[in-house]
């Protein structure tokens, strides 16, 4: 833990606590009112899920279009448990259940499908996401197409921020570790990575499951904020939303994903009454971006806060992790 924190100098801490405090005060004095709180939560949830997708897409170079399916698992677990047991302990138990289920389902999907390459993987994960959705649609306990309603609300700014920070730190530590570098080498050249002794399948499966866990956490936070969840909330369109955030921010870039999640969620709010126009803009943006800047705006680069304050980051070595 000490080591995990030692790499962050005071500007980082100032920003992490500053953003939290500022938003908390703004909520307290009601400048961020109930309406803006929805947007704020939307940003946080998209960010967590998109970070998970970015791990899969940006670090190991695999493709997943079934991300919303894992979000559904987290959401339904929390919903079912907290409706029966409406307490904070119930919430954590539900989230934990979601995480366990996600690991199981993620492994079941990942182990066979990650043997596939690129496009096949995209279709297989898309299919898996659809299968999860259709199963939720047909189960008794999930109340079919009507979904679950009356879920107690636990998600607030503090809880959301803790999870956002945890996910960012987790991914940052992963990216600049030996494990992360191994994943990046798989993305660049799988055969060469394998020849260098990297256990390609193991790393791909692990990253896939990590990414799925992020989505599950996002789903848990989603369910206990919006009161209502339905299977159709977690369809292909949502997976595409996350894909859009990752692609826009840059595949492999954490800071890019943060910026893109904020930007895209705000854009969604502004264009709320023009839902079709919004999708047309997204689609055009995807096409143009892929033609002119296929790695996304930031590529896999990061914006280091520390560097802005003139402190040199010890070049991302830390070979011992």
């Amino acid at each position, binding site marked *: 833990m000490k080591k995990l924190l030692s790499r962050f100098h005071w500007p980082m801490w100032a920003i992490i606590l500053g953003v939290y405090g500022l938003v908390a005060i703004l909520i307290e004095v009601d400048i961020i009112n109930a309406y803006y709180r929805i947007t704020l939560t939307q940003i946080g949830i998209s960010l967590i899920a998109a970070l998970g997708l970015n791990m899969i897409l940006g670090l190991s170079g695999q493709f997943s279009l079934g991300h919303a399916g894992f979000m559904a698992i987290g959401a339904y677990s929390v919903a079912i448990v907290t409706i029966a047991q409406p307490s904070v302990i119930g919430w954590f138990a539900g989230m934990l259940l979601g995480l366990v289920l996600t690991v199981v389902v993620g492994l079941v999907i990942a182990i*066979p499908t990650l043997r596939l390459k690129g*496009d*096949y993987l995209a279709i*297989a994960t898309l*299919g898996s996401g*659809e299968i999860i959705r259709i199963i939720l649609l047909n189960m008794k306990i999930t109340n079919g197409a009507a979904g679950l309603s009356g879920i107690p609300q636990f998600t607030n700014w503090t809880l959301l921020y803790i999870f956002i920070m945890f996910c960012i730190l987790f991914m940052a530590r992963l990216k600049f570790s030996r494990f992360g570098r191994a994943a990046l080498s798989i993305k660049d050249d799988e055969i060469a990575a394998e020849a260098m002794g990297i256990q390609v399948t193991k790393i791909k499966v692990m990253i896939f499951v990590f990414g799925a866990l992020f989505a599950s956490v996002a789903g848990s936070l989603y369910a206990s904020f919006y009161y209502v969840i339905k299977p159709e909330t977690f369809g292909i369109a949502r997976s595409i939303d996350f894909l859009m955030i990752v692609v826009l921010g840059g595949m492999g870039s954490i800071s890019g994903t943060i910026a893109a999640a904020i930007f895209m969620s705000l854009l969604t709010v502004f264009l709320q009454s023009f839902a079709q126009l919004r999708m047309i803009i997204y689609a*055009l943006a*995807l096409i143009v971006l*892929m033609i002119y800047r*296929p790695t996304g705006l930031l590529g896999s680069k990061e914006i280091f806060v520390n560097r802005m304050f003139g402190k040199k980051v010890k070049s991302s070595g830390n070979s011992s992790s």
Partner: protein
Amino acid sequence: MVQFAQQVINGMSLGSIYALVALGYTMVYGIIKLINFAHGEMYMIGAFLSFYLITTFKLPFFLALLISMVLTALLGFVIERIAYKPLRNATRIAALITAIGVSFLLQYSTMFLVGADIKVFPEGFTNRTFNLLGVGISLKQILIFSVTAVLMVALNTLVNKSKIGRSMRAVSADKEAAALMGIDVDRTIAITFALGAALAAAAGSLVGMYYNTISPLMGVTPGLKAFVAAVFGGIGHIKGAMLGGFAIGLIETLVVGVGYSLMKDALVFFVLIVVLIVKPSGLLGKGGREKV
């Protein structure tokens, strides 16, 4: 038994549709190794063009079908030129994301232009059901079978006998060598897209006539299922796509017939995952090795 035969007939007519769409996937994949996610939208646009040709211009069904095929082929050609051609040498993921973008662009542009509601496709002729030993086969189904058969024979002849078919096969086998032999690779690829789009448009129009309803999102699920069909039969093989289409249509209809209609979409994807694990090259695929 009669019931089963009836399900087979229904499954085959649905399968014909999937087969027509799957052909486009398989041809495009065979030639540039891209899953054209926007292919299901060609099917949707074909259906809408036929719809407007029949309702606004009062054309008979067959003429509308033909014009819709030609127009959709043009659209396929243009999309290839604008969206996919600049990505010829990009990574597979970039091309795939572009295809997803094109798919969404077409869906929502159509929705923007014609509205999101379901439209009723005009009948155009009186449907009748013929009775063969207790098994009913409707005029619509006969129409689907005959159009599909004609198109498949035409495509097969085109690919195997004509000059453009030969250049398509050459580009699919080795792009660079084909270019060195004087084949215009870009033109061949664009024509492949156009052909696939025309077949999808035919399928879309037939579906409009068969089920009487069309909507801007009608292409998503059949598109994915047709892709599964193409993989099932062995992607890149034209005969495989036909076989796969019929197989998926039959599987789906039989599952519904047994009473699991809600699970039919899940089952199709399950078939895909099983095929990809057991025999990724599909029924007719040879299973080449990935070159280092």
